[in-house]
C-alpha cells in the first residue's frame, strides 16, 4: 500500500499562508518597535505598513486558488464551525485595523503620529489580530483530522515562529534598502537570530512528533527523503534558515561595518529567508497524507486525495 499526498492545495495556498503570516509578523515587529521608543519610528512604520498589503496580496492568492471565485465573499458565512470562515474574519479585521493604522500614520495624514496613545491602543488591538492571523494559518490545516501531518498542535507554533521570523526579515529587507540606523538594524538582526534558532528547534519537534501513525510517518519520509526533500533541505533548511542565520551572525558578531557589501549581504539573506518561509508552507502542504481506510486487517490508500 502506497500512501499518496494530497494534491489539491499547492503553491497558491502556500503563498497565501506565507504572506498572511509574514504580513502579520511584520506588523507585530512594527508594533514592538513602536514601543521601543525614540529612534525606532522608521522601523515601526515599515513594519506596520508591511502588514496590510502583504495580507491583502496573500488573500489574492487564496482567491486565485478558488474553484468558484465569484462566491469568495461567502468565505465567512459559517464561523461557528469552519476555520476558513473564522480565519477570514480574523484576517479581515486585521486588514482593516492595519490599513487604518498605516493610513493614518503616513504622510500626508500623519494623524496618529501626534496622537501616540491612540496609536498604541490601535497597535495593541491590531497585534492581537495579527497574532490570531499567524496562529490561524496553522490551525486551518490542523482542523483536517485525517491528515495527521497537519493535525498537530505543533503546526500553529511552527507557522507562528516562521511568521515572526519572516516578518522581521521583511522589515530588515525594507529597512536595509531605505537605509536605517545601524543600531536598530543590529537589534533586528539579533532578534531574527533568536527567531531562526527557535524555528530550528520547533521544526525539529514538529518532525519528531510525526512518529505516532503510519500516515504521518509517510509524510515525514516524503519531506525528509522523498519528493518534497529537495525543497525541504535546500529551500527551507539551507536557503531559508542557514543562509540568513549565517549572514546575520556574521554581520552582528564579526563587527562588519555598515559598508555596502554587508548591506547587500543582509538584503540577499532576507530574500533567502522569505523564500524559505514560502518553501516551508509548500513543504508542509505537499507532505499532507490522508489516513488509509481500514477494514479488518486490510488498509486502503485513498486513490484520489
Amino acid at each position: 500500500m502506497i500512501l499518496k499526498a494530497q494534491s489539491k492545495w499547492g503553491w497558491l495556498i502556500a503563498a497565501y499562508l506565507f504572506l498572511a503570516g509574514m504580513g502579520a509578523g511584520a506588523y507585530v515587529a512594527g508594533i514592538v518597535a513602536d514601543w521601543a521608543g525614540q529612534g525606532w519610528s522608521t522601523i515601526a512604520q515599515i513594519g506596520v505598513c508591511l502588514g496590510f498589503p502583504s495580507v491583502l496580496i496573500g488573500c489574492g492568492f487564496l482567491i486565485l486558488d478558488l474553484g468558484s471565485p465569484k462566491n469568495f465573499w461567502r468565505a465567512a458565512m459559517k464561523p461557528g464551525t469552519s476555520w476558513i470562515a473564522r480565519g477570514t474574519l480574523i484576517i479581515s479585521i486585521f486588514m482593516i485595523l492595519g490599513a487604518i493604522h498605516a493610513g493614518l500614520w503616513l504622510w500626508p495624514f500623519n494623524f496618529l503620529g501626534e496622537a501616540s496613545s491612540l496609536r498604541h491602543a490601535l497597535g495593541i488591538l491590531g497585534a492581537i489580530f495579527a497574532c490570531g492571523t499567524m496562529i490561524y494559518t496553522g490551525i486551518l490545516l490542523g482542523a483536517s483530522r485525517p491528515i495527521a501531518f497537519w493535525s498537530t498542535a505543533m503546526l500553529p507554533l511552527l507557522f507562528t515562529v516562521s511568521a515572526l521570523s519572516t516578518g522581521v526579515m521583511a522589515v530588515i529587507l525594507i529597512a536595509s534598502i531605505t537605509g536605517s540606523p545601524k543600531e536598530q538594524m543590529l537589534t533586528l538582526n539579533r532578534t531574527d537570530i533568536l527567531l531562526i534558532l527557535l524555528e530550528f528547534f520547533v521544526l525539529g519537534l514538529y518532525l519528531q512528533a510525526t512518529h505516532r501513525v503510519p500516515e504521518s510517518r509517510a509524510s515525514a519520509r516524503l519531506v525528509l527523503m522523498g519528493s518534497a526533500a529537495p525543497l525541504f533541505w535546500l529551500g527551507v533548511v539551507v536557503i531559508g534558515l542557514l543562509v540568513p542565520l549565517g549572514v546575520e551572525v556574521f554581520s552582528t558578531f564579526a563587527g562588519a561595518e555598515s559598508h555596502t557589501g554587508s548591506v547587500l549581504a543582509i538584503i540577499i539573506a532576507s530574500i533567502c529567508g522569505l523564500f524559505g518561509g514560502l518553501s516551508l508552507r509548500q513543504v508542509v502542504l505537499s507532505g499532507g497524507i490522508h489516513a488509509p481506510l481500514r477494514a479488518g486487517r486490510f488498509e486502503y490508500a485513498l486513490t484520489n486525495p
Partner: protein
Amino acid sequence: MMRYGFVIDLKRCYGCYSCSIVCKAANHTPRGIDFAKCLQGEIGVYPAALRQMLPTLCMQCAEPACKTVCPTGATQQDEDGIVTVDKNLCMGCKYCMMACPYGQRHTVPEWVNYYPEAPAELDPYQAYAKMKWEERNGYGIATKCDFCRDRLKQGKKPACVEACPAKARYIGDLDDPESEISILIRRERGFQLNPEFGTEPSVYYLPAR
C-alpha cells in the same frame, strides 16, 4: 425519523466494478471523478496472500467533517441524513477534500473528453452527459455522491444497489431497528470505516471473514 443508511457486504463483493460504472452512467460524472470507487487491498505474501475489495461511496456521516469545515454553508445535511452541496453557494476552497477521511469529495475544473485522441467536439453521448452534469453539479465546486437522492424520491434504489450483481449492497433506514440493514448490521457485526475520526458514517461494512 428516517435516516438513510447503507450496508456493503464484503463477503459478497468480488470486485467487478459494476457499482463504479453504473454510477458514472447514472450521475454523468466527468472523467476522473468516481462517486462509487472500488479500492483494492492486499495483505500477506504468497502463498498466504489475501485480497479484499473495498467499495466506497459517500458515507453520509451523521457528523460530517465536510460540513463542519465548509466556510460558506454550501454543504448541507437533509433531515434524512444525506449530505449535499449547494452548487450556487460553494466557492471551491477544497477544504472539504482535506477534511473528509474517506476521499469522497471531488472537484473537476472542466469537462475533459473521455477519448483524448477524439476530435475536439464531443460525441452526442458525452455532450448529453456534460449537459446533465452541468444541470446538477458544475466545475470548480465540490461534488459528491448523494445516494442517488433523485432516484430515492421516485421510490427507486440507488443505481449502484440496483446494479450490484453480487447483491452486496443494501440501502435502508438506520433509525428503524427492524429494517433490513439494521438487522444485517446487528447480526453480522457491521462496522464503520475509520470511526476514530468521529464522523459517525452511515455506511456499514459486513466483515468478509
